């Protein structure tokens, strides 16, 4: 294969599209961790549920935009229930317990999808409005993947506006596990944590419905995704939203470029990247030294 500049450029954009999904996943994880100090081991499962729910709504309504809006709401609702009844009772105990609980939850969610949709999974295709390719100048690129990049950018922008410009966002940014600052601001800490968990899982669900047309939708699809989200958060720095975005894009690009030159090692390459970051800068690119590393 000839590695022309346009081929490389196309692969780069492919990497960015893949990275967009990673960035969304990492953002959801980091939000939940930053606010609740909980690592959501069901994150890959929520992603998977989002994909299934998205395909389901698309099938039922025939409208991709409906499904794009409804899916995060549904997945976020599952997240709200999870936090309220399963995670909340565990805050008083050691930091490992919510993690352990979400791990068990992941198994239940996987099986639930098998029951609801079958063990083979469901077929997923690109929505009609977004089929076809776009000429980027250096080559033709699938319209849907371009859409992915823009959709993610929109979500990131929206999240940034929420965090920086709204009162609620201020509370989320300022909040710590103690909830001291929240109490001073006269805010119900429990409600904030509930919302953040809901938002984090909703974003995971959104990344699932967005990713569905690009991959096989089956109950196991979230299993490797969990590990990959961890790679992104380690590289970017846990609890850092800019880190999640930058690292997500970087990981996506590394995966895509390695797929081009040494396809057998693509999955491995991103984990090796993580190992290198651990050696050189354990807190991640944007993480705070000493806090977690």
């Amino acid at each position, binding site marked *: 294969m000839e590695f022309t500049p346009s081929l490389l450029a196309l692969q780069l954009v492919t990497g960015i599209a893949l990275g967009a999904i990673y960035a969304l996943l990492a953002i959801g994880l980091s939000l939940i961790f930053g606010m609740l100090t909980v*690592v959501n081991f069901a994150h890959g499962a929520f992603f998977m549920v989002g994909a299934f729910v998205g395909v389901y709504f698309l099938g039922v309504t025939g409208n991709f935009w409906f499904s794009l809006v409804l899916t995060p709401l549904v997945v976020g609702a599952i997240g709200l229930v999870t936090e309220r009844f399963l995670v909340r009772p565990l805050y008083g105990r050691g930091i490992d317990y919510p*993690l*352990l609980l979400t791990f068990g939850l992941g198994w239940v969610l996987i099986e639930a999808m098998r029951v609801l949709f079958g063990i083979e999974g469901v077929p997923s295709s690109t929505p009609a409005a977004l089929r076809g390719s776009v000429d980027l100048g250096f080559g033709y690129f699938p319209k849907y993947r371009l859409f992915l990049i823009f959709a993610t950018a929109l979500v990131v922008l929206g999240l940034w506006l929420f965090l920086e410009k709204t009162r609620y966002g201020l509370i989320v940014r300022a909040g710590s596990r103690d909830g001291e600052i929240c109490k001073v601001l006269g805010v119900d800490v429990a409600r904030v944590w509930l919302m953040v968990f809901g938002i984090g899982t909703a974003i995971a669900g959104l990344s699932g419905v967005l990713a569905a047309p690009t991959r096989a939708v089956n109950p196991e699809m979230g299993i490797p995704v969990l590990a990959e989200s961890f790679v992104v958060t380690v590289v970017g720095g*846990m609890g850092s939203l800019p880190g999640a975005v930058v690292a997500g894009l970087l990981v996506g690009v590394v995966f895509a470029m390695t797929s081009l030159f040494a396809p057998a090692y693509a999955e491995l390459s991103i*984990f090796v990247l993580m*190992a290198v970051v651990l050696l050189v800068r354990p807190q991640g690119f944007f993480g705070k030294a000493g806090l977690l590393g």
Partner: protein
Amino acid sequence: MRAVYEAIRRHRVAAVLALLLVFPLLMPYHALAINILIFGLFAVGFNLLFGYTGLLSFGHAAFLGVGSYLTGIAMVHGGWSWWWALALGVASAALAGLVIGYLAIRTRGIYFSMVTLALAQIVYYVFYKAERWTGGENGLRGIQVPAVEVMGLRLDFLDPVTKYYVIFVFVAAALWFVSRLLASPFGAVIEAVRENEKRAAACGYDVARTKLLVFVVSAALCGLAGALRALHLSVVPIDSLHYLQSGQAVMMCLLGGMGTFFGPFVGAAVFLTLEDVVTTVTKHWMAVVGGVFMFFVLFFPAGIWGTFIKRMERAVRA
């Protein structure tokens, strides 16, 4: 009752071994008993790091798998005898523990769980890709151990009961070692690190090095479990290395009782028996085990054995 409990506590290794000695006679079928031995050891090895040192690793499948694969590879591709292959398996797992541990210990708390999972996935992918050596997706096959020669005696390894007792010897040695370690000065250091790292450092203990040493020992024990598993199954499935397998160790430990000597064994026994029973009734095993696990996390975090011990301790002190 109290006197019996006190006696068991003081001679916990002997008590456990006595139970395991008669175990095959109690079990409906031997494959389950052997599995309980092997995974009991896996859980005990994991528990050393999780229950006793307070480090929640989600990557311990790497050590189980490395132990299995290296033992299998040495025998299938190298023609080694089972004894040397097993030694290689254990040593390799310890080495993997050193590397992964070194990288993971640079992180703290919850971060550690994420990192161990991801690092162990590296091992998974490496072994998955190295098809020539590992059989890739299909796993490693053809590990033949027809007989075990000991002091001139030729034991038929294919007979389940004999197999159980051969494996039992290794597990017994490992349990004895773990018991000694926990009762040693190093065992006290482990406890201190678990209780309060900052304080342990202020007392003069190198926390990072302590953790690393426990990591390596834990990995070696899990590697032994893996090596024994390879000899038992004659194959090494690729899933041995996946983080879902690591998750099983976590579940067994919590179900049984982390931070107790016998808990992990109880956890392994319950987990495997449950799996056996449930899969005959429904194929939705993952949901059942996930649900049971969540139930324990919420309501019985001390686990079955752990809760029992707590009740006994309270009764004894009253």
